[in-house]
């Protein structure tokens, strides 16, 4: 009897230990997949970055300085190109859906700036038409090849790479995919990688606009 009870206690103890190990393992796996700081859906930068002071040309043909000419309380910056079939449409379409859900009070305080990494093909007209497909409020900027490289350097993203053109003159452009969020103190503490969902934006944007500072 005593042996049976002892076995029972031992078995329960072993069972609990196994459950604890499994739960611990699951927690470890979950934390291993989560690269964001608690509560923030974007990727918090290890070091804050200053909003780049570059001037390019907007789709009306006017000079546009990223710091002086953005009017909202949050500037979102992305480099891409209008022939992009995969990354850019999903990124812009998802952000637009989130802004629509959040409403004008939030959307009006956000400046989405899309800088073309393919200025040769992306004329101001093409850039404007492309962005209007998402939002007439999205800002399109274009520079010379040299200005575009400088802008990427200042934004601390890798420079885009243009593939060689094929027989039809078509080429792809490799580009950084994150959207960088500069708050109204001119500092970015968080970026949003490709794959950020509308729900993620809807959680983070109001917090960023409220002046919360993401920290790792």
């Amino acid at each position, binding site marked *: 009897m005593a042996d049976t009870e002892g076995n029972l206690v031992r078995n329960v103890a072993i069972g609990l230990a196994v459950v604890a190990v499994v739960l611990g393992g699951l927690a470890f796996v979950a934390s291993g997949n989560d690269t964001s700081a608690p509560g923030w859906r974007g990727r918090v930068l290890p070091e804050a970055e200053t909003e780049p002071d570059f001037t390019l040309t907007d789709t009306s043909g006017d000079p546009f300085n990223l710091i002086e000419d953005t009017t909202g309380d949050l500037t979102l910056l992305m480099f891409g190109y*209008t*022939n*992009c*079939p*995969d*990354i850019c*449409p*999903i990124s*812009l*379409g*998802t952000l637009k*859906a*989130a802004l629509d859900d959040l409403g004008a009070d939030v959307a009006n305080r956000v400046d989405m700036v899309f800088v073309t990494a393919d200025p040769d093909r992306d004329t101001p007209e093409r850039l404007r038409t*492309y962005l*209007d*497909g*998402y939002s007439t409020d999205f800002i399109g900027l274009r520079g010379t090849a040299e200005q575009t490289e400088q802008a990427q350097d200042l934004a601390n*993203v*890798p*420079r*885009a*790479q243009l*593939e060689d053109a*094929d027989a039809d003159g*078509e080429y*792809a*452009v*490799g*580009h*950084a*995919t994150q959207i960088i969020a500069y708050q109204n103190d001119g500092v970015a503490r968080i970026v949003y*990688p*490709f*794959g*950020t*969902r*509308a729900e993620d934006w809807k959680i983070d944007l109001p917090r960023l606009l409220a002046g919360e500072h993401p920290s790792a």
Partner: protein
Amino acid sequence: MNALRSAVALTVSALCCAGCGADVEPHITASNPVVGAVPGDSAAVYVELENSGGDDALIGATCDCDAEISLHVTEDLDGISIMTGADRLDVPTGSTLELDPGGSHLMVQDLQSPLTAGSTIDITLHFERSEDLSVTVPVVPLEDLAERIEN
């Protein structure tokens, strides 16, 4: 000696397997096709191709939507997303080729009109060995595609 025997057995089984893949008729089924409701003239079709037969390869696609389709592979290299054209995408025996956002996809170029969520486009997939495969692709809101991306 045992190690040698194991190595021989492995080699023989690998050769058998490779032989089977080439000899057996491929059998490819498509699932979860989708394309985003892009306002622009370039889009990407995503689909999963499962091959329960012998080796095959996707070598192209055509569309009823009056647009060009080409195979593309997207890779993340040193922080930038690089997309390159591909002549073929292998679908080896017993595998599933997953065309997903941010990865390999069928690039649709020169769309004559924007794709509208709720509609469909019909595409035909061309394979090295299999017969053509027709797939009806639902057009979905772009934000739905973000849900398919694994971070």
